[in-house]
């Protein structure tokens, strides 16, 4: 059975207590009810925290870009301008909701929601920590690829429904870009799936270690290249610079969301920033060790050994919070790199974008896939560090 956040929390003593109390109160078995409540609560927290991270993403974008351009950035609202995104949100709600007269009404209303749904559905399998993952689907990676493709449909429909030339061009660019870059991204993910033999984020993360030399990015030369292919592809799939052709402001005003106002525009923007977090999280989970904390701190075993008096559940909780912190830290570091790239590199042309995807990234990703398979077969899946260590030991006369 797939383990979920509920099956993790149900190990806590408070869970049985709550179930018993509610069973007495209602007169029927309250396990399902409590499970539903827990799921609802955790999903509610995750969605809200993610929205806050998406909002803070806009703040980070401005602050980091200001830093790179030797400016101040937002510094009026709240300490260091931290509340700028809330002010923006209030402004967005206050704006008039304009529906262009010639727009396709139904599609115009549905398109921003599709983007939101696609992104927030992918949060269900994002591995925040061993216990706090909403659900550990055994097809988690595949599921994430599936639901996140809804974002492409949303962008395309948003461009189409606005009935404006700029939006149309932006939407078409967005859709073709997302479809094209799905190929190298999926192939580089497939290499990792090949190494671990599983589509579950949990198994893939557990196959790595807490220290950098145990991560998949440094496992062998092919995965090292694969990480960069995945990262470039992820930049293109989220329409971030240097691949932000769908919203190229110098050519297309604002691309597919030119005609959207107020909260509808905010939905697109929020979906984009949360999606960047999600793909950075996927990169971190697949290649950078995900939530693994060094020295068994994450599972709470070290704490249990050092302080035997501590309740095992408490040790586990501490470990999980450490894992959560490590995962978020890695993801936010990648997030910083994404913003850094945006404000450093100029935008690409449409044709060079397609050339990069089909003539460079896809063949490299294919080569990586075959290379990983050969590596698995030749060295039985040992990492390059293990091989170096072994040959060093052998050179020093360490044969049995």
């Amino acid at each position, binding site marked *: 059975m797939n383990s979920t956040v509920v099956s993790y929390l149900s190990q806590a003593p408070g869970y049985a207590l709550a179930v018993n109390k509610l069973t007495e109160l209602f007169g029927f078995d309250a396990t399902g009810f409590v499970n539903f409540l827990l799921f609802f609560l955790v999903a509610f927290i995750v969605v809200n925290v993610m929205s806050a991270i998406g909002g803070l993403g806009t703040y980070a974008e401005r602050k980091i870009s200001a830093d790179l351009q030797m400016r101040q950035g937002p510094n009026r609202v709240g300490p260091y301008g931290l509340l700028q995104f809330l002010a923006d949100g209030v402004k967005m709600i206050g704006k008039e909701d304009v529906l262009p007269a010639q727009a*396709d009404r139904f*599609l115009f209303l549905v398109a921003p929601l599709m983007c939101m749904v696609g992104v927030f559905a992918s949060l269900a399998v994002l591995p925040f920590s061993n216990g706090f993952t909403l659900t550990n689907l*055994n097809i988690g990676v*595949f*599921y994430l*690829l599936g639901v996140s493709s809804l974002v492409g449909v949303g962008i395309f429909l948003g461009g189409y429904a606005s009935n404006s030339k700029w939006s149309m061009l932006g939407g078409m660019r967005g859709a073709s870009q997302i*479809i094209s870059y799905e190929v190298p991204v999926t192939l580089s993910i497939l290499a990792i799936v090949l190494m671990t033999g599983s589509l579950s984020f949990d198994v893939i993360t557990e196959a790595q270690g807490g220290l950098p030399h145990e991560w998949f990015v440094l496992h062998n030369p092919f995965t090292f290249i694969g990480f960069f292919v995945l990262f470039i592809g992820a930049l293109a799939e989220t329409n971030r610079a240097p691949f932000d052709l769908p919203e190229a402001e110098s050519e297309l005003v604002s691309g597919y969301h030119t005609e959207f106002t107020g909260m509808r525009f905010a939905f697109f923007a929020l979906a984009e920033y949360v999606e960047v977090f999600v793909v950075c999280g996927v990169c971190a989970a697949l290649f950078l060790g995900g939530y693994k904390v060094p020295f068994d701190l994450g599972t709470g075993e070290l704490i249990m050994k050092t302080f035997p008096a501590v309740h095992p559940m408490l040790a586990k909780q501490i470990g999980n919070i450490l894992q959560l912190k490590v995962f978020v830290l890695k993801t936010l570091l990648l997030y910083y790199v994404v913003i850094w790239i945006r404000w450093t590199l100029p935008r690409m042309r449409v044709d060079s974008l397609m050339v990069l995807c089909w003539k460079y990234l896809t063949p490299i990703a294919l080569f990586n896939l075959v290379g990983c398979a050969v590596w698995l077969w030749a060295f039985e899946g040992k990492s390059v560090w293990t091989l170096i260590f072994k040959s060093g030991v052998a050179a020093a006369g360490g044969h049995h």
Partner: protein
Amino acid sequence: MFLKIMFVLSALLTLGGAFLTASSKNLMHACVYLLACLFGVAGLYATLGADFLAAAQLVVYAGGVVILMLFAIMLTGGVQEFVNKFGLDKTPSMGSGKTYTIAGLSMIVTAFIVMKILAPVFKTPAQTDLPAFTSTVEKLGVLLVTDHVLAFEISSILLLGALVGAAVISRPRRGK
């Protein structure tokens, strides 16, 4: 209980999406309803315990096929007003007496064949309960490269042929 609720929701989504797809006058809207219908089918697969199939349905249809259909509709100009400037219905009738006769006859023949195929299915005793949920990914993977490797390879050759064909057709002709 949970599975039943999910089944009813997915079935409603599938049927509603299919009905709206068929009844919608605007092709783009029909495509979006079709997306809802395909999501419902994915939900049906998931409630039946075919988790991998459900995810494949999402990846293939939601990601690829629906976007391609949207592109095709848009590039071929399939979205038109179905009423001319006098307010008359422009949609042509769907066929003549001849086509309706042929369609009716072939439908009867097909229905007989389908009933013949389905007859033994309904004779088997009804299954009381669904088996416990197990992952299908490993079984599928093993079967694909052992028992069904021929079908797997043939379908890959078909896809390769389609890919090469598309490249040949879209290639700009030189010397003309």
